[in-house]
């Protein structure tokens, strides 16, 4: 490496590198960087704290809602339902067949079958809240609806 060209190049490069090394950065530039970093970190801390408190508040709200929903509360007032008297149903009494006994033998004679009246239908009229709607319920004697 005794080539004078190489040595000259090295010396030249060393001068350039030295010039770059000697360049001093103004102290204000360092201070500015530190200031920027610290303020950014403080902002991050504030943001983190805000998010933490928000998360805590949200969790507390959810917990309160859950407790309110799951805990047995005071008995709810029951809805008052207007009680309507059941419609009176009138049944027509069925005539009992008269028993006729034979005079001498005492055998029961079949009498004339009693005339069976048409079974009356009970009409149950139910009023609803809506005056235009009336439920009419037809029921026979057995209780079957028609």
């Amino acid at each position: 490496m005794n080539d004078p060209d190489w040595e000259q190049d090295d010396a030249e490069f060393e001068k350039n590198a030295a010039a770059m090394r000697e360049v001093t950065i103004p102290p204000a530039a360092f201070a500015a960087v530190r200031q920027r970093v610290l303020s950014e970190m403080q902002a991050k801390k504030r943001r983190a704290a805000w998010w933490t408190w928000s998360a805590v508040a949200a969790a507390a709200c959810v917990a309160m809602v859950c407790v309110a929903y799951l805990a047995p509360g005071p008995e709810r007032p029951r809805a008052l339902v207007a009680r309507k008297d059941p419609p009176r149903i009138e049944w027509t009494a069925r005539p009992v067949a008269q028993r006729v006994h034979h005079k001498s033998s005492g055998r029961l004679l079949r009498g004339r079958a009693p005339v069976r009246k048409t079974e009356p239908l009970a009409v149950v009229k139910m009023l609803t809240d809506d005056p235009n709607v009336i439920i009419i319920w037809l029921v026979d004697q057995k209780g079957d609806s028609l």
Partner: protein
Amino acid sequence: MADFRLKAETAGQSSGLLERAKTGDLEAFDQLMRLHEKQVLGTALRLVGNLEDAQDAAQEAFLRLYKSLNRLPDILEIKPWLYRVTVNVCNDMHRARRRRGWEPLSGPDPVSSQPDPELAWVHQERGRLVEMALKTLPEKERAAVVLRDMQGLSTREVAEILGSSEVTVRSQISVARGKLKKFTDRYLRKRI
């Protein structure tokens, strides 16, 4: 030659700082930054070529340091770690700038420490010329030459920081010096 890792006594003082900084003590972190600001800002300035971008890069490097404090087991690891991060941040900035296709305006010029104004001017011009020449180098060569020749690290240390072998770093530095020489010669010939 600058010491790559912290000296023992400095490390002893700094380990307390590191522990305090890990607990979120901003004052301790401020002290840590003061210990490493010359290294970070100086490297960034040589890599990106202007003070404004160098400040941005240094800020990003320190913020990354703060995020990674808990992953750094030892104060001795901070210096090489910061070099690595600074180089990466500057490379990212170069790539982003290339993608956007614009060159930012240069910030205020760093000043020369020479007391003689004429000599200071010569140094400043020379520094500016090297700065321009450095911009023409590829990322890895620029990082190698800045860390080796301007930050004064050894080839082994540069290799460790850049994640390359020593042979690769030597070759990169040699090629980079050749390119710098060619650039400065051409520039000076044009000016003359």
